[in-house]
């Protein structure tokens, strides 16, 4: 079948601002949106820029806005979206070229919440023990692939880019609820800050955007509640 695809293009070397380009592509309904982008790049316009690597939803490279919603281009099939298919870069981060945005501030926010296990106790020669129940408490948030679909779908983040954003809070959650970690208090102090978890207005955009099915809003709520216990 033929599908019409509109892509928001921007090349900083030639364009003053973004503009829409239309492509008519021969496509199979079972193909991924990413396959369509490859068709444009490989057989029509080699300068089209987008990130991708794994092509099956596990590396987090290709979050973009398709028909108004954030998703991974490699995780959605042509038959699942309506045509014409409109593809734009994720919002709230500076565009470098076409569908590629600058991720620096996103990773800076991630690094702010101490996204690593802190435990200075002598662990002994074998593994630390952890019951399956304790392990389950943070299972959901271990799945994050740092794709930024959640953060860039958040209306609070669009207006205040100093907000750490859902992804950073998800990654804090992963350690706050890990029974082996000893730095919850420090992490929660950071998230109590003006740009922390309480900025969240529970819009739920993040939860619907997450390609890993993480209950992002719930994780933020868990963190908010935990923050109230540290005083």
């Amino acid at each position, binding site marked *: 079948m033929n599908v019409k695809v509109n892509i928001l293009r921007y*090349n900083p070397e030639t364009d003053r601002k973004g503009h829409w380009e239309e492509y008519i592509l021969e496509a199979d309904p079972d193909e991924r949106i990413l396959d369509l982008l490859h068709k444009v790049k490989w057989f029509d316009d080699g300068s089209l820029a987008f990130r991708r690597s*794994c092509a099956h939803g596990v590396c987090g490279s290709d979050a973009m806005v398709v028909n108004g919603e954030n998703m991974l281009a490699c995780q959605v099939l042509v038959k699942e979206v309506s045509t014409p298919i409109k593809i734009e870069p994720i919002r709230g981060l500076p565009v470098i070229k076409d569908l590629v945005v600058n991720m620096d501030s996103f990773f800076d926010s991630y*690094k702010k919440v101490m996204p690593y296990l802190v435990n200075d106790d002598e662990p002994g020669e074998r593994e630390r023990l952890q019951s399956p129940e304790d392990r389950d408490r943070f299972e959901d948030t271990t799945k994050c692939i740092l794709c930024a679909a959640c953060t860039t779908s958040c209306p609070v983040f669009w207006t205040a880019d100093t907000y750490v954003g859902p992804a950073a809070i998800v990654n804090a959650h992963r350690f706050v609820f890990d029974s082996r970690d000893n730095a919850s208090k420090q992490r929660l102090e950071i998230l109590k800050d003006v740009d922390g978890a309480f900025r969240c207005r529970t819009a739920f955009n993040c939860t619907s955007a997450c390609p890993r099915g993480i209950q992002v809003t719930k994780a933020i709520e868990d963190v908010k509640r935990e923050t109230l216990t540290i005083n």
Partner: protein
Amino acid sequence: MKVIKHSFDGVIVGAGGAGLRAAIEAAPHMKLAVITKLYPTRSHTGAAQGGMSAALANVEEDNWNWHAFDTVKGSDYLADQPAVDILCKEAIDSVVELEHWGLPFSRLENGKIAQRRFGGHTVKEGEAPAFRACYAADRTGHMILQTLYQKCVSMGVTFFDEFQVLDIKIDDGVCKGVIAYEIATGDIHIFEARAVTFATGGFGKIYKVSSNAHSLTGDGPGILYQKGIPLEDMEFYQFHPTGIYRLGILLSEAARGEGGILRNKDGERFMERYAPSIKDLAPRDMVSRAIATEISEGNGAGPNNDFVYLDLTHLGAETIKQKLPDITDFVRTYVKIEPINEPIPVQPTAHYAMGGIPTDVNARVLSDVTGTVLPGVYSAGESACVSVHGANRLGTNSLLDIVVFGKRAGQSMVDYVSSTKPMALSDNAAEDLTNKIENLMEKDHSLEFSVPRIREELQDTMEENAKIFRSEESLEKQTKILSDLRDRYQNVTISDKGKVFNTELLEAIELEYLLDMSDTTVASALHRKESRGAHSRVDHVERDDKNWLKHSFAFKNGDSVKLEYKDVELGNYEPKERKY
């Protein structure tokens, strides 16, 4: 072109499991940079699913000697046994160390790390399948990559994200640094560094149907090969039995470890005929051959009889949800069927390079068959060939390999840097590279010589002529095709002449590595006149230990490939017939 110069003691190229593990070891002792063409967390280690083996004995009696036996037998006796001993012995501490750094392994009721069965891993040298693979549901690689990156963040390791290394500088046989291209700006960066580790991963993109990411193009091996460094055992490329039909997306062996069964079009559990004792959990080379045989004998399913089924329907919804959540989601997303109720169409998919840059057990790169070390250059992970996997890797042994030998690469960098003085590179060190790029940019674009056209033909023909079963005829044919493609590549053109995020330019450069990987694979396969592990010659069906118990070293010789051979290092296990 703008050229910027940096000075470091050591540089690690690649931020997958192997590169990050090396960085953790080296960073405290030197001025270190990790250069990576992808953001570290996008590396393909994150796609690994099933597990990482270590004889922890958390479920049942186990010891590292049995693990070593299985690894050697799985390798069809081509692995170097002293290296295998290191791998299996150091496995235990490596897993424990990852746990201490926060890796969220799945747990047993008693709180210990959970372990599952995997192909080719047995207790008591073949008696029964062993519970040896440590796992975190079916996203073990994701957890390893995240944990190692988190550790690097906590240590303040310096990263150059989305910088692609395109050249190494070796003067008078000594390493002086690398040259990288900054993807966002098109600027060229000279990195002075006397210790350089390549941890650039595999090159599954030489085939059409593959479990590998688009980024896996053999950059490290390609860069070194073009400088005259040989590539070892390139004829041994692993096809994983269970890729999703046509797409190649992997469905982990964990699916069979948890009880999944392969069936042909009649519903028959055909592995009973090929490996009576461990059946569906036989090593990958055997299972992939069995599937290919079923298909060629007309027992494949579907209108074209070209796939078989992976049946999970008897496992129950709860096991699937707890233990195989991601891979069953892939099936729902891409095939639109419910694996709890329906069997899944699968076919073998290009998966893992046993071959690569030759190294010793300390990850030092070797420049010939006598074991001469190339000073200052190291490699670990899938880009390297130690060799611990020989002719066929066992599942779960690669995640192990990347941490065990990644650590050793880091240690070797430390030893080398502490006993040598900084090296200087001149300001025009990037000249070869800038010339190459300017050449590519200047040529008028023509579709015939475009990257996608040449690459597509390469992948289609490698799939046809150099896959699971090979013959002199198919390999000769492919040699000719590769030589034509190489000629066309000399005229390759691109349409994007810009500086910012010009990934078309980078794809053009990567295509040359894919051609190098294909040339060496086909030449090594053509010369090896026996069948061993993943290398099956229909015209030489037996393994031939008398003549071929040796590693192939493929050298660049103008536009052709020259082969030399190195004896396998044996140990406790004498080569025997391989039966399961």
